[in-house]
């Protein structure tokens, strides 16, 4: 009987988990062309990708946007969680409002931000203009486009991560803080010496989540270019996920796209490993 109860999941797993993974590997070893003929290619697709400037540009874009988005986001989420952990009125309402971005649709939000970042009439340029900054073409230039997309990601996820951090903070025993206060530790010191190290398990969860989400980024940059996976006229904000979709579903080079999918997976593993090592060191001694 137990097997019957878990079987629906594992049947689905075979059909929509194992099968696509195995076949992605299989496809990646073949050369497909538009006429539909296939030819054994060995590791040629991988070799070609590693020599493909477009692929590397997508990798750089993805990693850069991931870093620009994640580093400030983690810091902000931590401080926000710390603030949310205080006593104040309208607690639930405030917690709900910081989660509001999460429940709005990604595409809708990207549309709104794209308008906010419009060159000639966007609100962002108008505000910057008040400080004497000339209008930026957020979509045309590489670094500005990364920043614009990173803010969309951060808007969506900072509140969510803050709530997760908050949950972690509430599991920290209060007597730790009381003991520290008696020893004369300032509140700032308590945050760095108690809160941060005790949050490590939560942080691993949040950082892994952000790594997977950030390195597979697709919706925001695609919508930023009106639903086109080119990622701008020069591919300046094309991510690896967009590159895969372009190769697979516009160029119909299935083998190439499949190989790129495996390299993306490798990138995620590397990213997860680096983050894991980094988080392990946070807070130093425990």
């Amino acid at each position, binding site marked *: 009987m137990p097997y019957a109860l878990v079987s629906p999941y594992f049947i*689905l797993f075979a059909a929509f988990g194992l099968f696509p993974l195995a076949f992605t590997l299989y496809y990646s070893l073949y050369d497909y062309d538009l006429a539909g003929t296939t030819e054994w290619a060995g590791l040629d697709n991988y070799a070609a990708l590693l020599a493909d400037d477009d692929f590397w540009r997508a990798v750089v874009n993805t990693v850069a946007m991931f870093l620009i988005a994640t580093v400030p986001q983690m810091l902000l989420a931590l401080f926000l969680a710390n603030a949310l952990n205080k006593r*104040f009125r309208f607690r639930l309402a405030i917690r709900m409002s910081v989660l509001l971005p999460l*429940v709005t649709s990604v595409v809708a939000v990207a549309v*709104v931000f794209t308008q906010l970042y419009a060159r000639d009439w*966007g609100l962002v340029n108008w505000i910057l203009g008040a400080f004497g900054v000339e209008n930026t073409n957020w979509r045309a230039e590489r670094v500005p486009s990364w920043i614009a997309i990173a803010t969309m990601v951060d808007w969506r996820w900072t509140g969510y991560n803050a709530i997760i951090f908050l949950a972690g903070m509430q599991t920290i025993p209060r007597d730790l803080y009381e003991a520290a*206060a008696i020893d004369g530790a300032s509140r700032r010191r308590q945050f760095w010496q108690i809160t941060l190290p005790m949050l490590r398990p939560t942080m691993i*969860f949040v950082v892994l989540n952000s790594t997977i989400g950030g390195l597979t980024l697709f919706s925001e940059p695609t919508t930023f270019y009106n639903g086109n996976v080119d990622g701008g006229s020069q591919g300046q904000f094309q991510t690896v996920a967009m590159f895969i*979709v372009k190769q697979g579903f516009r160029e119909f080079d299935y083998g190439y*796209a499949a190989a790129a999918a495996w390299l993306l997976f490798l990138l995620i593993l590397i990213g997860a490993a680096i983050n894991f090592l980094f988080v392990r060191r946070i807070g130093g001694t425990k």
Partner: protein
Amino acid sequence: MTNWSPTILTRVMLGVAVFLSAFPLYWMLVIASRTNADAVSVPPPFLPGGNLGENIVAVLNNEDAKFLLGLTNSFIVATVVTVSVVIISTLAGFSFANLNFKGRNLLLVLVLLTMAVPLQQMGVVPLYRLMVSLEWTGTLKAVILPYLLNGFGVFLMTQYTRQAVPMELVEAARVDGAATLRIWWNVVLPAVRPGMAVLGINTFMLMWNDFMWPLIVLTPDNPTVQIAITSLNARFSTNYTLIFAGTALSIIPLIAVFVAFGRQIVGGLMEGAVKA
């Protein structure tokens, strides 16, 4: 407890966070209720105008956008996936948490591993070819089926059942002669209802927002709401009020769910985070 009362800085920070979270949505409403001339004026308009109803009617009546169809399709997809995922996960969670069987731990590890692999991005090529050979491209089936696989759901329900349904309860029911499915229905289901609600709300929101796979496997003729917005955006790129009225329509169902279940969503998220 004076130590826990907020400082001025904390209050300011919370205020800014609430403002920034709400602002883009407010902005959506401002543009959606204005005219196209207002949308591109400098300085930008800061207050809502009076054209919201008009703009929404224009979106719904736009033949090319198929917006109503998109809303309906998204509703079907999200509902079917949510109901199926909740049932599959509850059954598997009960099994993993309360029943002993050979290979249980190994299977549970397998579930955890599937959570770590971004299958939607990784397996997109074979999944698409599969849908082509089944002649399912352009249909909702193609969107629904791959998402029935949800490792997070099984994991969440396993954790939840472990804590909500003690083994003794299951064993007592068994001594009374209840069959396994009966125990699931009479003992487990009532106890894990809050966990099911969290999983259900979560799944519904994820499905409503899903973008990459529907963009690949559907056509603009039979879109989900996200695809409908994308085609609006591509075809009428300068008709801001039309696009913004569409985006506003697309988030209304989500906001409604959120307002209705806000307490459970916040509570569930926080509980899930600590247990995971």
